[in-house]
């Protein structure tokens, strides 16, 4: 890749606005959002529900179109969904009628058989699902379903993975393990990640930078860098300091 492109951000969001027209009035979901994401960066979009974080993700993914502004990926405007920017949904977009193996094969239909097999085996190994290749989603746990979704997304070798509260449907202990898993996989594969969450700890444990958003209209309140290297010490002074800052930005009381 040319060095000129290396300095260019992977994702550029410029002056992005999104207005949903409702029956009587209009709802400004996003207003004038600017954001740059470097290649290989892990960015969390953090905010309360209704702050437009999912809308932003949907526009980057190409599932929704903006009302104003532009989104560039590698300098090219986004026009519709593309396998280079793969979505992982909260409600597991994996297909219940297909086995784990066939789900991961979804994006690999155009590869030759043996190549397909090699790639699927690699990602099944990566997400720790060996032995469950022939299982159906109804036979495995929520955490395992999300592992399938991650494997299916990564198998097409995307540049960007867009995760929309991917752990939202899981219990808190499984969430914890899955965060560690996602970090491990990200450190191994080095894809760019845009990760939507409303969980402050989740953002703090995962992100290189946390984009804090405020609601109605959705805009960026502040971008908070998290400098601490992985693995992060959850009780460390730095961790608590940033956490306090985030709670302040979100307008949440620190005492309960």
């Amino acid at each position, binding site marked *: 890749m040319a060095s000129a492109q290396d300095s260019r951000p992977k994702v550029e969001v410029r002056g992005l606005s999104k207005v949903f027209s409702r029956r009587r009035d209009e709802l400004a979901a996003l207003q004038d959002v600017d954001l740059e994401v470097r290649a290989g960066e892990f960015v969390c979009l953090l905010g309360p529900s209704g702050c437009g974080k999912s809308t932003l993700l949907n526009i980057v993914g190409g599932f929704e179109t903006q009302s104003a502004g532009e989104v560039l990926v590698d300098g090219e405007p986004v026009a519709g969904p593309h396998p280079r920017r793969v979505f992982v949904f909260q*409600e597991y977009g994996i297909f219940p009628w297909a086995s784990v193996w066939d789900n991961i094969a979804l*994006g690999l239909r155009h590869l030759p058989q043996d190549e397909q097999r090699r790639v699927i085996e690699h990602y099944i190994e990566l997400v720790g699902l060996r032995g469950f290749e022939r299982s159906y989603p*109804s036979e495995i746990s929520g955490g395992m379903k999300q592992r399938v979704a991650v494997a299916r997304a990564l198998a097409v070798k995307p540049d960007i993975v867009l995760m929309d509260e991917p752990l939202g449907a899981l219990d808190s202990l499984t969430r914890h393990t899955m965060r560690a898993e996602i970090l491990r996989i990200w450190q191994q594969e080095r894809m760019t990640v845009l990760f939507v969450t409303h969980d402050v700890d989740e953002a703090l444990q995962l992100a290189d930078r946390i984009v804090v958003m405020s609601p109605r209209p959705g805009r960026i309140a502040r971008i908070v860098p998290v400098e601490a290297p992985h693995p992060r010490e959850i009780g460390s002074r730095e961790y608590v300091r940033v956490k306090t800052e985030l709670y302040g930005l979100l307008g949440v009381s620190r005492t309960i």
Partner: protein
Amino acid sequence: MGYSLWPFLAIAGGIAVILGSRRLGESLQKVVLPLSAAVIGVSLWQLACEFKSYELRAPDGSVRLIEVFPTPWQTLVELARMLQDGTLLRYTIASLYRVAVGFGLAAAIGIPVGLVAGWSTRAYRTINPLVQGLRPISPLAWIPVAILWFGVEDASAIFLIFLSSFFPIITGAMTAVHSIPTVFLRSARNFRLGRAELFRYVVFPAALPQIITSLRMALGIAWLVIVAAEMIAVQSGLGYVITDARNGNNYPRVLAAMVCIGLIGIVLDLGVRQLQKLDEVRWGFSKA
């Protein structure tokens, strides 16, 4: 006049078994409970016969018991006779053949058309009003039309079966496509599935459980309708047996045919329910 004692004993016994079945194991319950219900049903049937029977005193002083209603035993004897002389097999095959052809055609046309109409808004707007307008018309209302068109032939009955199962199937397929969760379609778009791939890998499998449910419903209706259709539109089959036996004043045979129709109905439904156990569709059914 007197009633037999055994139906009362059987009913009491049946109720006692049902009430006491809590202590039985799961698998034993599955056998014992429906069996008790059957015993009670047959007993009530017997009592109904005895209620309707009366004694006729002849001028010579002899008394004869006139049984108006065929008893379970008489029905069973008649059933055995039909089984022996081959009428039962022949007519069952005739009925099943018509249902198979009519239902098969309805599924072969209804499923693909329903899938397309469920997917494309324009196709839906074109087809749905017609389907919803024709659907409420009882298939029985079509009998005169069918006879006019096809004559008193197999084709008449097949046409009626087609009509009776086509509308539930096509409606089921359309609704099934409409209720596919967005997240599945988005996944498909994300991985750049073409139109044919989209149908093969997403739309069809996602709609399949609901399609199977509508097939099950349609087969039930088809089996209801075939009997009615055969009573009028053709001269063979289990429905025809009923009309024919009534005309010959052979009421045990009427009842025997009814019992057969019920039993075959159960078998057909069990057959369709087997489809729900396939790996590809199990997810769409709650554990049953």
